[in-house]
């Protein structure tokens, strides 16, 4: 059926949608909850539980055949955070898009203030100032920044989108770029290269989907390629350069034996390779259970999945991610507002960026940067951020028909 000249639904779709709404409305305030896509939510939570199970395996002590007391907190923390994240995600999913959009700029402003505060009062950790300490609570503002920037840029386009059916003029894209680059620069300065990259990448995706001319897209890619050597030489820190060197050595087959950066990659490759087709079985990974892979509970958790569940398990996990991203794109496509569409692709890009970059890094295809595997890696703030991003996507799904104002910025 041709959609020419029709922006809403076909009549069939409208009927189904209306009928469902009428049916669920009988459940009163719980009707909205009932209308959530529970199979998708199950998939998200299920993936998180895979993380819990793998963290249990990381903390397993094969000698005493019991959880090692030092590492028993790993899975417990993770499942607790998963619970908190779940409640948050459902809560956020129920918020109408208008609320999301209304709070976009205040959230953005708050995040910028926090990021500036971090640069001045931040708590040092791992050689970088990333944390703000308020009493007993530690906040890492670069994590909520991912969501806030997505919301702000999407909201900005929602307000600036021309009503005449044209693409937005170039200055609008310029403004959006500025909204992205300010927090990205602040995060980069901490320094936190991976989050700065994630912010820039998801921001760029939003600008791309907002309809910037393909000329500029291609020009940006070309420019990026030209500047790679310059970035390598002037922007990267020596340790980051070393990681890139290691990566190139690994891909071109030069010797990467020994300790240091290449040791981690080498041990990760051994763990993955030793998993083979069907894996060694849960709690049975010889490489993983004997702690040969550093950071296996955080960035390198994919290695224990690949070793204990093999090719099958790794492909299954990647497929689940691929499916969730594809579904999110469908959500974006079906949303009626620019805010809904762009916020969805922004949130999806953020999660996808981490999933792709993490797998690429663990598989030795990308340099080692601190990138957790969404939903699975140990680490509270990242998990909560990912769940919040899914909350936004679910909200965009639930409120796909909501009409938002396009009446300019103020």
């Amino acid at each position: 059926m041709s959609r020419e000249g029709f922006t809403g639904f076909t009549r069939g779709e409208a009927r189904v949608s209306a009928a469902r709404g009428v049916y669920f409305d009988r459940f009163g305030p719980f009707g909205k909850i009932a209308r959530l896509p529970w199979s998708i939510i199950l998939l998200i939570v299920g993936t998180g539980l895979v993380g819990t199970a793998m963290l249990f395996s990381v903390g397993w002590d094969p000698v005493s055949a019991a959880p090692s007391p030092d590492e028993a907190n790993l899975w417990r923390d993770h499942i607790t955070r998963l619970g908190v994240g779940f409640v948050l995600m459902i809560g956020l999913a129920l918020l109408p898009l208008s609320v999301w959009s209304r709070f976009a700029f205040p959230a953005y402003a708050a995040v910028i203030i926090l990021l500036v505060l971090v640069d001045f009062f931040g708590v040092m950790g791992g050689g970088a100032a990333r944390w703000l300490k308020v009493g007993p609570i530690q906040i890492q503002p670069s994590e909520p920044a991912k969501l806030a920037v997505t919301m702000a840029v999407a909201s900005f386009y929602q307000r600036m989108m021309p009503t005449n059916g044209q693409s937005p003029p170039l200055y609008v894209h310029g403004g959006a770029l500025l909204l992205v680059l300010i927090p990205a620069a602040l995060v980069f300065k901490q320094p936190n290269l991976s989050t700065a990259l994630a912010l820039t990448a998801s921001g760029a995706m939003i600008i791309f989907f907002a309809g910037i001319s393909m000329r500029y897209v291609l020009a940006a890619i070309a420019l990026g390629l030209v500047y790679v050597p310059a970035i390598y030489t002037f922007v990267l820190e020596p340790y980051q350069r070393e990681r890139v060197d290691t990566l190139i050595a690994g891909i071109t087959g030069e010797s990467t034996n020994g300790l240091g950066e290449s040791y981690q990659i080498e041990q990760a490759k051994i763990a993955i390779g030793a998993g083979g087709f069907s894996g060694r079985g849960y709690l049975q990974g010889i490489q993983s259970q004997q702690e040969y892979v550093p950071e296996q509970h955080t960035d390198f958790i994919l290695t224990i999945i690949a070793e204990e569940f093999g090719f099958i398990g790794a492909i299954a996990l990647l497929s689940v991610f691929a499916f969730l991203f594809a579904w999110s794109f469908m959500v974006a496509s079906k949303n009626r507002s620019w805010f809904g569409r762009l916020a969805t692709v922004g949130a999806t890009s953020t999660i996808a960026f981490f999933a792709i970059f993490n797998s690429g890094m663990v598989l030795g295809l990308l340099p080692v940067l601190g990138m957790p595997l969404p939903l699975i890696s140990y680490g509270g703030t990242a998990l909560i951020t990912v769940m919040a991003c899914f909350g936004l996507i679910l909200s965009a799904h639930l409120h796909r028909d909501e009409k938002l104002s396009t009446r300019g910025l103020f």
Partner: protein
Amino acid sequence: MARRNSPEADFDRRLLLAAGAGTAVFATLVGRLSQLQLIESDRYTKLAAENHVRLVLAPPERGQILDRFARPLASQRQAGRVSVIPERLEDAEATLRQIAEHIDLPETRVKRVLEEISASRIRRSGFVPVTVVQELSYEEFARLRVRAVEMEGVDVQMASTRSYPRGRDFAHILGYVARASADDLTRLAEGRAPEDLETFEELFRHPDMRVGRQGMERFAEDWLRGRPGRRRVVTNAHGRPMEELEQDPTNAAVAGKDLYITIDSELQRVAIDRFEGESGAAVVLDIASGDVLAMVSTPAFDPNAFVNGISGKDYAELRDNSMSPLYPRAHGGVYPPGSTFKMVVATAALEAGVIDTKTRFTCHGRMWFGGRNWHCHKKGGHGSVDLHNGIKLSCDVYFYQVARLAGVDKIAEVARKFGFGEDWVLGMTGARGGLVPDRAWKRKARNEEWFEGETLNFGIGQGQLGVTPVQLALMTARIAAEGKHFKPRLIGFGPDVPEDGELDMPLDAEIMKLMKSGMFGVTSEPGGTAYRSGDLGLGGPRLAGKTGTAQVRNISAAERVSGVRTGDAIARELRDHALFVAYAPTDNPRYAISVVVEHGEGGSRTAAPVARDILAAAIKMDSGRTPAYSKRAATKTPDTDGKPEGDPV
């Protein structure tokens, strides 16, 4: 409305584009996964297996040291040991306090253990047990064993420890073992192939491993050590053992060999008791075989205190003790022999032909020579003295004359024939040779000519001359054996002692018979300086001997006049040493002995009774009977001679 080029339509197209790019990324990841997990999986599986299997060093059991009759003197004992495993401790300090409720655990030790625990956490070696107390008493072990079940991370078990069941009795002979220090490693590493060194260091870092630090433990280190084995175990990335694999029997540790020494530990015990707390030394030799049957140096230290590391305070106490318990008097103590040396002087003069048995000198209690008076120990003098009476009465004037006639170089030559001046290592550490002075030595060492007066001093065993109790016993045995070839031994079955020679230079049997007759006179003829010591109290056999007094300092003229030279009138450390050498039985000599009682003042009064009782015990216990190792020693082949099987590492 939404035309083909509308932003909405464009959005959907761009979604498809992004989905396409995502698919490409997905395909790349799947491709990489198939490469690693399907194509190269075998290679990585092999690498993973190699990562984990390690050959862990298994330390060998150290060989025992046994006495003549196979009584253990140094052995491996299973002792209760309590250790903590740092990675399993929640609160290390609280756990140590809990342990301290059940056993004696000094505060300093607690502090030390806590330091070790935090160090092991930094090294990520929290799985390596940290020893809290190396040796628990049986009661402590039993008590703690029951309690430890409730204490997480506390391990109470039996472990192999070096132990010296005879304690102080053999401290100076056996020495002790200790954890290897950097110096020990350097010393042991000498001459080893560089590829062995790593294993060697690994071996000595093992908590159960000890190295011989002193005495025979050090001398026979290679014999006793054995060869470490290798156990195949699966370890994790931090080296923590995870599981044992099937073991290759050829890789098992080979225990060190047992070492037999010639000493009769019962005789040793008797000898030590006989000193009754006095400081001194005694050496008993079997004249027929050359075996050392007893070798005493008192006071001594307890070598068990060194095995697990002696505290600085305890060590300082030993070091600064005025009785010097660390000092090995029997083989490392150098004394002037005093009158016990007179047989050597007489032998030299007889060999040189400057005197014979009938040569007489008259003693007036002193002799004028070189512008001063040379005194005899008997104020009134001995009158006319011949060789037999010279020895029996120990007449100094007689020996001044004899020494003058024989000359310093002849006396020195004969002294060396008797074994003076040479280190008798016998497989110990700390042996000293003393000094036999002569003209050449004086020119070289002092750049001075020899004075004739010094020869007189030499003639009565004073002056520069320095000898050890071991050398005195050798001299006595050689006299008793009438000059026959003689090879002293302390190691009955064990590595050879390349440093030691034999006493095989000819000594005239007739001259030796004269010496024996003189020594018999000393103990068994009226007027002999030790007349009452001749009877062994065994109702038959007698001993023959010679007394000696070693001056600790010169006697001043004033003291000589006043006669105050002994007793409580002067400080103990200034009193003379008492010496006695003897053999028994007189008709068919079997045992020779030398005794030094430090600051004992008179050889006949303090040293002779000690020697008599020890000799009597040796005869009564038949200490020289066939040793337990005689069969082994006979089958000792050149292959195993002196070296453990294979290289020790």
